């Protein structure tokens, strides 16, 4: 987090945040801003407050949201990348491969797939694009009770991300 803050000229956060974080609940430190979806919306989907890390790069970047609740961890990973042309979307689409299920009315095109149970986590993934911008959304958790709702959460989060990319 300190690294991201410095990179965005918010270097002062590296000093004050640790101090304040010691005095306040973990979820209440000021987080960087993800340009494609805000923490409150992801928090709403994950049913609790989240922390966010944003790592930009020249073609887009990633946002990682995390919520912890005791032993349970919930995460959302958002990747956005600018492609040379829509034809370059194939490698992104391949991330879902044969498991891909078409999602109607999200971006130009979008596909969702169940990534199964891996590293003690269930995960759902959406790959899609808006014009020449590819996006990948992953929603993960080790909370088995949330497994059945991961699909809907992934769709809701994706609609927000795709919406801002238009």
């Amino acid at each position: 987090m300190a690294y991201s803050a410095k990179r965005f000229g918010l270097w002062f956060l590296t000093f004050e945040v640790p101090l304040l974080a010691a005095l306040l609940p973990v979820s209440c430190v000021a987080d960087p801003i993800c340009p494609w979806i805000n923490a409150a919306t992801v928090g709403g989907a994950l049913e609790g407050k989240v922390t966010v890390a944003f790592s930009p790069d020249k073609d887009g970047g990633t946002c990682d949201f995390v919520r912890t609740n005791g032993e349970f961890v919930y995460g959302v990973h958002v990747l956005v990348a600018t492609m040379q042309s829509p034809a370059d979307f194939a490698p992104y689409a391949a991330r879902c491969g044969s498991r891909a299920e078409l999602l109607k009315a999200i971006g130009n095109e979008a596909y969702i797939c169940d990534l199964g149970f891996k590293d003690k986590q269930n995960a759902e993934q959406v790959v899609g694009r808006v014009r020449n911008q590819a996006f990948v959304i992953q929603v993960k958790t080790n909370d088995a009770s949330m497994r059945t709702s991961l699909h809907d959460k992934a769709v809701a989060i994706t609609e927000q991300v795709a919406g801002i990319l238009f």
Partner: protein
Amino acid sequence: MIRFTRRAGFVTVAFAATLCFSLRTAQAQSDPTAERKQYADQVRQTYNFRFGDGVISVPGNAAVEGNDFIQPGAFPNATYCKHCHEQAYSDWRQALHSNSFRTPFYRTSVNILLRTKGIEFTRHCDSCHNPIAVLSGGLTQVSQVDRKFDKDGLTCTTCHSVQRLQSTSGNGGFVLGVPAVMVDENGNRIPGEVPYEQIMQHPDRHSKAVMQGFYRTPEFCAACHKANLPNPLNDYKFVRAFTVFDEWQNSKFSKRNPLTFYSGPFTTCQDCHMPRGPSTLTEYGMKDNTFRSHRWMAGNTAVPYYYDFKEQLDKTIAFLKSGTYLNVDLFALRKESSNEMIAPLGSTPFTLAPQEKVQVMVVIQNKNIGHSLIPEVRDLYEGWVEFTVQGQDGREIYHSGFIKPDGMLDPRAHSFTNRPVNTDGEFVDNHKVWTIHSVAYDNTVQAGRSVLVRYEFRIPPDMKGPLTVTARVNYRHLRQSYLNNIFGMDHPLYPVVEIASRTRVLNIGANPAAAPDEHDNPDWMRWNNLGIAYLDQVQYAEASQAFSEVVKLRPDYADGYINIGLTNMLWEKYDSARGSLEKALSLSPDIARGLYYMALVERRQGNSDKEVADLKKVVEQYPFSRDARRELGVSYYQLYRYDEAREQFEQLQAIDPDDVSAHYNLALIYRRMGMKDKAAEQSAQFWTKKVDPGAPTYSLDFLKKHPEISTESVPWHVHTDVPDDDVHAQIGSASGGGQP
């Protein structure tokens, strides 16, 4: 500087931390008022108040009682309502209102505003497209609002929480109450959701909470179906955006305008766009076994097409094709050989020969739409005339208004669109409305009026069999280039809907008179529509001739004489106008339209008492007539009767708060009456709302670069593929240059 920044950083973080802590405690609140206050206090601390302290929604107008932020959670969501209103929910889910924010068609435009000027400017658009986002304080750089409500756009409890209307200026001119679905025994609103059982026990109290009498009025729709671009948005001046409410008010359906060419039954926006019908689902809102549709069918086929809402798409297409909204009339021919107008086609015999150059005059009447064709954001939509001539073997002889292989419309089609331009004289593409400084071209047909479109072609020398001539009005939502901006070039073709059409078969050789089609207007009305079209094209001699044909066919028709009088009056032939108007008034002594125009003739001829008397009669019959109020105000002003003039202009301003003549005259009157502050206020309003005299230069820059549009902007243009040399030979007085 560094020290200062570090301190600022510390304060910011401490502040954010405090805010977060407060948010947590807020969750434990159960008192809705206290909960709202605490929420608002928190949002206020990081909200971008760029447009003034405490100002939430500017550059939009959305407002909520208490004039403070409200939690999104205060709005019961649509699934809560669905429990008892399945039909309404089902309709709404596919309708434009529930999709007012999330669609790519909207987001592409508003995202540009967000990226280029800042999210706070989007409060202008979202006052109507996403009022919960505006009023919850979500449209700010550091938003802490969960935007899950975005997918519901205008949910049930946005419209059904409106407690009063601000004015008819639009831009979200409503005031919401704190959402409630019940009132208590004293009529006080109970915020938030209540158990369904309570509603079932007191349906009257539910109704009191969620229904208002004014929901059934066009003024309710005006809150968002009228829009302007205010100075805080464009850093320029007030610019009118769209005025569909005003268009309705000026239509025959409002019964508020005495100057319409035709009359019709009082019909509201809701009557057409929320018709009653049977419900197939559980719906406690039914009356007499019918329920008002919550689909708001209109012209938008793009949203149901994108979301694959088949029922909405089918119903929208059926709606567009359903009625007698438009009348397409292949009204007349002009032949190069005779240069006479053969009209009306069908009733008048004629002959055609190979190699003849022919002009077909198509009259398109906006017969039963309560607003313009196409209404609202005409820069995004594509309505146009497709005109075809085919030989008996299917050979295409002439085609205007075709779709090209890349999906683009024939650039020389006669289209009902506009071209707003910026200060570089460029078309304001992608709906960047905040950059609009002028409108280079705006082609529409207002409610009840008609347009004349001319097509010219040459019959091939070898043509022996009949020609099939068709004119149709097509509609596509949205313009192809806008769809390309949204999706890139690789998107499917969006639906093109034929709204109305007319075909005639023309023989090579003799064409005897034929029986009319069941959808054809009677001949007197066909002539009348031609006259109206000529009038709007400022061709007074031709208009007068056409209206004279009307009174030949219907000598009892007072409006026919009024139309002749109106034409002469616009032509500044006041004596001739008086004769026709007197004839009309002898047939129908109280006809307000006749009295109105007669008053203007009286004014010209210095008969002030008669002028005022006539206008007073018009105002008595039509108290909501803008024109009558304005002219009566002018009459009083010229007679130094300032109190009475003031009353008229204040009434006019109540009807239309943006009427420029009301601002101008009230500025003068208030000043004369010593009311300097009010005069200054009206004067300021006048200066920002009047057309910028420097703006047309940007239009000219655009027209210079776009000859196809430049030609379209000339009223008497002719569409043709006949070579230029031929065209210069000219057919009839109306020819003089063409485009395919």
